[in-house]
């Protein structure tokens, strides 16, 4: 199950799992099956909560407004506070029937006009937590895991049918044996793609998301544990075919690469801006079919750059070989950088 969005609840399967699903505890905490991580907050004892960067600590702030006598309808106050980035926020809210008159605290001053002894005051607790914080936590772990091993990881995203898997099999055949490659495959069902990858000689692990529509960082974390990619290798993560959801989920990869084929519409970047904005590189695939389709390459690139001025574009044909050298040079260059940037050199082993 996706730890952020709950999609595919109880249905995520990772190859090799007896029954690979996350489950919830009675107390509301939940965790994945096979492991126990110190950094995972959801272990049934309260750490409090994670803070967004810049937010030092949670604090309670009381409103403590004074009121005019006779003002005993349910109170609505304007409250103003300043966020860490300087944004001033004003909002109104009801105190739930509590008023402070000088040093006298009135309870039960709502519409009922009754004083209800023991009726508690409300207080504000600041959280400032990113809704995607949990996923990002797992993503950070993955990123560190990969950095320690000098592994270059790419998150391949696209619509279904753009040619991701074929692009991968063709890439792997050209990368091996000089560059070791492992693959994490994401699909709703079947291990078809992982099997196609394995036929090239590279190790692959299939994640089936069930009803889920994207891979998330916790799934990738579990897959990495099982897969144990070798040091100084390249890891391809082939995401679920989906041009919407994967955009928002950091898996711990170095780059998202979006694959768009010329049999799709050239205005895809405008229609699905989140994905093209999240990607570093766009691979325009199946260019061997350009003579047979009315696809405007220049316009497509212009649209992509409109949504993401920094995006790189390469035109390729995985089946015919066009542009593959350029794409693989990009992969090899980043792989070499990752190798040399290895954060924690291990004890020297025979290589």
């Amino acid at each position: 199950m996706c730890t952020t969005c709950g999609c595919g609840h109880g249905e995520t399967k990772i190859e090799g799992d007896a029954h690979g699903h996350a489950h919830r505890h009675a107390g509301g905490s939940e965790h994945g099956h096979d492991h126990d991580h110190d950094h995972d907050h959801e272990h049934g004892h309260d750490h409090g909560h994670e803070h967004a960067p810049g937010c030092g600590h949670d604090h309670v702030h009381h409103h403590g407004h004074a009121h005019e006598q006779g003002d005993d309808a349910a109170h609505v106050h304007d409250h103003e506070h300043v966020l860490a980035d300087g944004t001033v926020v004003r909002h109104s809210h009801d105190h739930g029937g509590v008023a402070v008159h000088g040093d006298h605290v009135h309870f039960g001053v709502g519409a009922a006009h009754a004083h209800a002894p023991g009726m508690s005051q409300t207080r504000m607790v600041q959280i400032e937590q990113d809704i995607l914080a949990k996923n990002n936590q797992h993503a950070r772990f993955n990123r560190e895991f990969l950095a320690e091993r000098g592994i270059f990881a790419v998150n391949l995203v696209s619509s279904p049918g753009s040619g991701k898997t074929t692009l991968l099999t063709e890439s792997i055949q050209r990368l091996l044996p000089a560059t070791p490659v492992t693959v994490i495959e994401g699909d709703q069902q079947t291990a078809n793609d992982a099997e196609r990858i394995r036929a090239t000689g590279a190790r692959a692990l299939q994640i089936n998301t069930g009803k889920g529509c994207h891979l998330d960082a916790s799934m990738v974390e579990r897959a990495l544990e099982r897969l144990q990619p070798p040091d100084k290798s390249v890891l391809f993560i082939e995401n679920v075919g989906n041009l919407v959801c994967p955009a928002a989920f950091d898996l711990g990869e170095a780059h998202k690469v979006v694959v768009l084929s010329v049999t799709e519409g050239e205005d895809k970047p405008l229609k699905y801006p989140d994905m093209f904005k999240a990607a570093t590189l766009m691979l325009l695939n199946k260019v061997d079919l350009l003579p047979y389709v009315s696809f405007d390459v220049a316009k497509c690139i212009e649209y992509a750059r409109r949504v993401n001025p920094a995006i790189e574009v390469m035109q390729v044909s995985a089946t015919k070989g066009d542009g593959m050298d350029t794409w693989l040079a990009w992969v090899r260059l980043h792989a070499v950088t990752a190798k040399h940037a290895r954060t924690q050199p291990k004890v020297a082993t025979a290589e």
Partner: protein
Amino acid sequence: MHEMSLAEGIVQIVETTARANDARAVRAVWLALGALSHVEHESLRFSFDVVKHGTVAHDARLEIEITPGRAWCMPCAESVDLARLGDACPRCGSHQLQVTQGEEMRVKEIEIA
């Protein structure tokens, strides 16, 4: 994006905080959603109302504060307002923009009893 899933995430964050602060009930939840973030607000409200049932946030109101979108325009060398991703710079019409604010989705604070 999937608002039902986001709502579950919000309730989870709220529950954890409520527990840590010994709250009996959550009266209100404040979200900061950037104008450029990938959320449909009405759908989120609907989903939140569904997901909060049976939790400590059962009666909680959802307050959404929309933080404006801002971007750095490279030709202008200035920070500008940005209403939507893909929009041009309101000053010079260029698309060479670097978003600096407006994509966040945060649970800001909660009011507890």
